């Protein structure tokens, strides 16, 4: 179908860097609150943006296990960095949320359900791995027997401006996980930044009618074959320069064979059980609830907060905790990401974004932990699969 802009879904056009602000204007006019990357406290985080000038223009990041530094680029790239400590989950699955309030009068109480009326989000600069992460959280919150109304409202209204990664981060391994670097689904518009001495443009893939309609307000021209080829080359280059790799063949079976493995003891000696990995992970969805009352005990509230399987009380049952040791908790996390998730939701729980590696204070590396267990099978140092005692 032809949109008002004369553009169709599937078209590829070019927007000049100078007109990026027009895209922001068009989103704002349509009532979106624009969220995207910006520099704050020496990191690139996601927050409300007033204009395209709030983007991390001319910045890049250096990432390694337990290491993240911002660096000036020698150009004015707008999307010249990888993912930071934030992910979109903080907007669709907020870190703290009041689920309901209750009021007590005369020994009875009344529950007042929260209703949110937020303007819809426009997410700017969503990477391919992050689109996969959103799709994974969709399975948790939208596609089961129960639907999370807050997630649904925030997610379904969101306008998504994705970005093809022009360079891989030091801890990225999306190519291993088949989740990137090329954006393939789940976007309204997908940008690829082309920047050299002569030009600074965005090649734009139009993913939806909504995306096509928006372009009615933004100057553009059709993309040439050379420009389309440049996008392919750029993405291929990124794919070839991943900071990490992970062998995923039969990874579920591999981990199911090794619930008992000395490597879990080894990693437990290093892991601080701080839970950073779960907080930065774009797919980790666990929460806890907190019931609070006012001082007079007349009003109560229930809050839902992000939780982590690394917290000691996560598995508390009267009389003890199921996963008391660090070993059991790390094993739960990694086995969930890479194995049980597949049984639960039909996909891996890891999209290879590398955040858990970068933000681990002691540089524990999920790709390395998998490698160690996998290699122990071929070197014969793995214990034979546990037999019932």
């Amino acid at each position, binding site marked *: 179908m032809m949109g008002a802009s004369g553009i169709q879904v599937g078209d590829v056009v070019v927007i000049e860097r100078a007109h990026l602000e027009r895209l922001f204007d068009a989103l704002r006019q349509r009532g979106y609150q624009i969220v995207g990357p910006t520099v704050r406290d020496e990191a690139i985080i996601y927050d409300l943006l007033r204009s395209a000038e709030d983007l991390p223009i001319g910045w890049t990041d250096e990432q390694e296990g337990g290491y993240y530094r911002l660096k000036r680029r020698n150009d004015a790239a707008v999307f010249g960095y990888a993912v930071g400590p934030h992910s979109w989950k903080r907007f669709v699955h907020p870190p703290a949320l009041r689920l309901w309030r209750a009021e007590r009068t005369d*020994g009875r109480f*009344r529950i007042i*359900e929260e209703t949110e009326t937020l303007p819809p989000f426009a997410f700017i600069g969503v990477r391919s791995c992050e689109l996969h992460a959103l799709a994974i959280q969709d399975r948790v919150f939208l596609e*089961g027997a*129960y639907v999370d109304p807050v997630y649904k409202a925030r997610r379904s209204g969101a306008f998504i401006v994705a970005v093809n990664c022009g360079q891989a981060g030091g801890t990225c391994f999306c190519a291993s996980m088949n989740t990137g670097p090329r954006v393939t689904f789940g976007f309204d518009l997908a940008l690829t930044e082309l920047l050299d001495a002569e030009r600074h443009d965005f090649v734009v893939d139009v993913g939806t009618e909504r995306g096509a309609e928006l372009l009615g307000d933004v100057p553009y021209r059709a993309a040439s074959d050379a420009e389309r080829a440049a996008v392919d080359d750029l993405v291929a280059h990124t794919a070839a320069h991943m900071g990490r790799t992970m062998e995923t063949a039969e990874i579920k079976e591999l981990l199911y064979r090794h*619930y008992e493995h000395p490597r879990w003891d080894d990693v437990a000696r290093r892991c601080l059980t701080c839970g950073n990995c779960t907080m930065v992970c774009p797919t980790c969805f666990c929460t806890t609830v907190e019931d609070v009352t006012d001082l007079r005990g007349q009003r109560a509230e229930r809050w839902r907060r992000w939780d982590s399987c690394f917290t000691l009380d996560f598995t508390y049952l009267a009389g003890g905790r199921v996963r008391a*040791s660090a070993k059991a908790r790390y094993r739960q996390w990694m086995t969930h990401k890479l194995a049980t998730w597949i*049984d639960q939701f039909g996909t891996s729980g890891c999209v290879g974004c590398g955040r858990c590696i970068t933000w681990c204070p002691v540089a524990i590396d999920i790709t390395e932990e998998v490698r160690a267990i996998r290699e122990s099978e071929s070197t014969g140092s793995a214990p034979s699969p546990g037999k*019932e005692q």
Partner: protein
Amino acid sequence: MVPHPYRVRRRRRETHDTFTLELQPASREGMDDERLPLGQEDAERDIPIASPQPPSTVPAFLPGQFNMLYLFGVGEVPISISGDPADSTTLAHTIRAVGTVTAALRALRPGDMVGVRGPFGSHWPLSDAEGNDVVLIAGGIGLAPLRPAVYRILAERAKYGRVVLLYGTRTPADILYRRELARWRSHFDFDVLITVDHALGNWRGNVGVVTTLIARAPFDPLNTVAMMCGPEVMMRFAARELVRRGVPVDRIFISMERNMKCAIGFCGHCQFGPTFVCKDGPVLPYRGVKDLLTIREL
């Protein structure tokens, strides 16, 4: 996701630490009881509530399912439904006071309010068990989620072969539902075997773990469906004993317990390997979890 207001109709003491709450919906709307005339409940304290509106029905449930019980400002806990699935006016929950929320639930009086979300989770395979002998094995408070199964079986007794309940508690004083157990026992076609870990007082029954009852319980192993609820070790050993007697592994079902914050598959707390105990369980086929049960701290 929001609790519905219920009122305590009666609180029955079962043992020194265990009690049964009988709950009724606080209003027909379920969400809101503003229409109750003011001051009504003070007059109604301690006596069964005479609702100003026609009594509304409780949601239908299947034996083995649970509810989340919310106590104003204190917290919310998963508790199995222990009442008769044929009773559409009252929800029964048998609760052992072990901590903050359960102790506070014990302090409730008739007329007090609790929030209820549910019913949640899987149920005992009672339809699949038709035509078979049924062995119910309970340890301690584990009898609570099995009681609705007993009611259902007794109501449709002709559909089943031999039915036997094996029940173990720590001491004779911990035996739940004493009068009902005696009544069930008096049925000529319902066997009840009880054992205690420690015989105190004038106990003259069995002493020892519940597993020891399996060998002499009257059932035909090859045509039996077993359903059990109790501590995990108990269930593991009991399952092994059943298999030893010849019950096929895939005819054994257990009910599991894990920390639960949401009961609807969102919070992640209840995971047991790939299983979400809240939505895939609490009743699970033993075959599927047999190996996982042997892994420590899973």
